[in-house]
């Protein structure tokens, strides 16, 4: 097992981890404090002026000092929308992973511990789910949702819908990971020791086995956040995700895409760069975590 101190030492001795950590921290801080930091509130229609639309970044001819990275078609500052949009992307990413985690960990734990037909049933269900692409499920569900409700209702519930859909579509990854760890843990003698004192299965599962299966869950969580952000961006890019008035990074990229051939590349480029930085940082951290927490790859001092 790795101690916090060992963990920290590992982190501080790996430049890639430090880099990814700093990028992620900056992006998270930027998103959390967007209302304080952003020069403008892109959700506040009163602050928008159609006359400011499609301005290039401030260092280019025609740029305005108020809009460092230029503005989009509605006159919103690209920098401000990125700050707010990163928050929405992160919120959906983390929210979806929480849903995936709760569903996947619970079902994986039950499947692994109970075994027999429950296990067979849940794992076949997971197989079916995995054989349908997440994007496809999301497109169908969101298209139905958009058709069933009017645009205002959709706009209000888009975040929750995205979280639920991406969350539900990806639970098998957690379930399988947890199940395989449970299968390894449940035959260990400490589980027998807990059963000898007559602890009910529920307590054995949650209090004894679960804490010992969380390491891989932590690793895939990081990578799944990146994945969920990408899925959300793809959906938004297809027009099925966040509405234009509450844009995520994906919908920002989409909103600028129409103008890219008329030369206003900045509306798409800067959100895309932030999206890449965010996803890359998360994936690098996920890989690093996997290496650090894998006892087979670890050697020496801790």
């Amino acid at each position, binding site marked *: *097992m790795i101690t916090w101190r060992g963990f920290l030492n590992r982190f501080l001795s790996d430049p890639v981890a430090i880099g990814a950590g700093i990028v992620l921290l900056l992006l998270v801080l930027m998103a959390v404090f967007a209302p304080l930091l952003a020069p403008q509130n892109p959700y506040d229609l009163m602050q928008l002026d159609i006359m400011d639309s499609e301005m290039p970044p401030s260092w280019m001819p025609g740029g305005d000092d108020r809009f460092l990275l230029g503005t989009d078609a509605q006159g919103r500052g690209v920098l401000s929308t990125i700050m707010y949009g990163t928050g929405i992307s992160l919120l959906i990413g983390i929210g979806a992973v929480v849903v995936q985690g709760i569903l996947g960990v619970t079902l994986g734990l039950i499947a692994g511990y109970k075994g027999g037909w429950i296990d067979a049933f849940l794992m076949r269900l997971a197989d079916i789910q995995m054989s349908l692409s997440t994007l496809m499920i999301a497109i169908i569900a969101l298209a139905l949702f958009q058709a069933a409700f009017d645009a205002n209702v959709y706009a209000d519930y888009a975040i929750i819908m995205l979280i639920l859909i991406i969350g539900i579509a990806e639970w098998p990854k957690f379930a399988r990971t947890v199940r395989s760890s449970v299968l390894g843990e449940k035959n260990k003698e*400490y589980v027998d*020791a807990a059963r*000898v*004192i*007559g602890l009910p299965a529920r307590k054995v599962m949650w209090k004894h086995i679960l804490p010992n299966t969380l390491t891989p869950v932590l690793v895939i969580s990081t990578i799944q956040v990146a994945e969920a952000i990408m899925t959300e961006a793809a959906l938004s890019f297809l027009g099925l995700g966040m509405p234009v008035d509450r844009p995520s990074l994906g919908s920002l990229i989409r909103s600028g895409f129409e103008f890219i051939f008329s030369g206003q590349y900045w509306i798409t480029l800067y959100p895309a760069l932030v999206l890449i930085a965010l996803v890359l940082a998360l994936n690098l951290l996920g890989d690093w975590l996997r290496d650090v927490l894998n006892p087979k790859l670890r050697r020496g001092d801790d």
Partner: protein
Amino acid sequence: MSDAIVETRGLEMRFALPTHFLSREKPVLHALSGVSIKIMPGETFCVVGESGCGKTTLGRAIMGLNTPSAGEVYFNGKRIDQMDEAERKPIRRDMQMVFQNPYASLNPRRNVFETLAEPIRHLMPEKTETEVRAQVEDVLAATGCDPSWQRRLPHEFSGGQRQRIAIARALVTNPAFIVADEPISALDVSIQAQILNLLTDLQAQRGLTYLFITHDLSVVKHFGTRVAVMYLGQVMELADAETIFEDPKHPYTQLLLDAIPKLEGGSFERPRQPGELPDPVNPPPGCPFAPRCSIAADRCRSERPKLRVIPGSTTQAACHFAE
């Protein structure tokens, strides 16, 4: 002799082996076939045998970790194998278990106090938190553990220290009966003696009854009161620990005794023929030891011998020809 603390009657344990769901064959592994033993209060009842003989399964069946396919398990005269959890709970205090591998038997994410407090909290809910603390400290002192260990995690301890903690956990509810499944075989030689002495001391202080599962006959000789030798899910010989070394009745027991390396040397001068455990999925119809036995006759291959008292001794053996 009905005052046994633990008794099994005709205990059978069969495990269905995993197969393809379309396959017609349903192979069944016979882990225990008709084991009847009586363990008397205060004694150290040893179960000896090689891997696959069912000794661990027997311990697990008595503790309720596996449900027997047939047969009965009694504790102080009460049948426990069919009790529901509510009925069984008060009995669990009195029966505890020490496992073989101290590296796997302690939850790696729980500190020593949490590990030791859990049985009390679950089985003795009437205890207050102060009483729980006191009880944990008492048992740590009794098993030679330092009180400062309580806030530390298992990975900070050596194998011997972990096994002390595991013994402390088994004792924390003040049980009368303990199943010890190979408690020293994962430990280094110099540590084995420490743990055996600890078990001896605890037995003297608390009047414990042990079911001691081991493959090591020299430990039995030192430590045991009575011993059951098991082979392929059956008891082959049941005897006093002292007599079995002087006068083994069953040919398998003799083979086991001959196999112990001696410090004097010289007992492996002649080559030995390879012998194997028969397939537990398709056990032979007669005596399971017949294929390896030097005195086996046709009767042994067709008729399974029953455990019987050998005339002129207290030993019971399952052999047609033992005398």
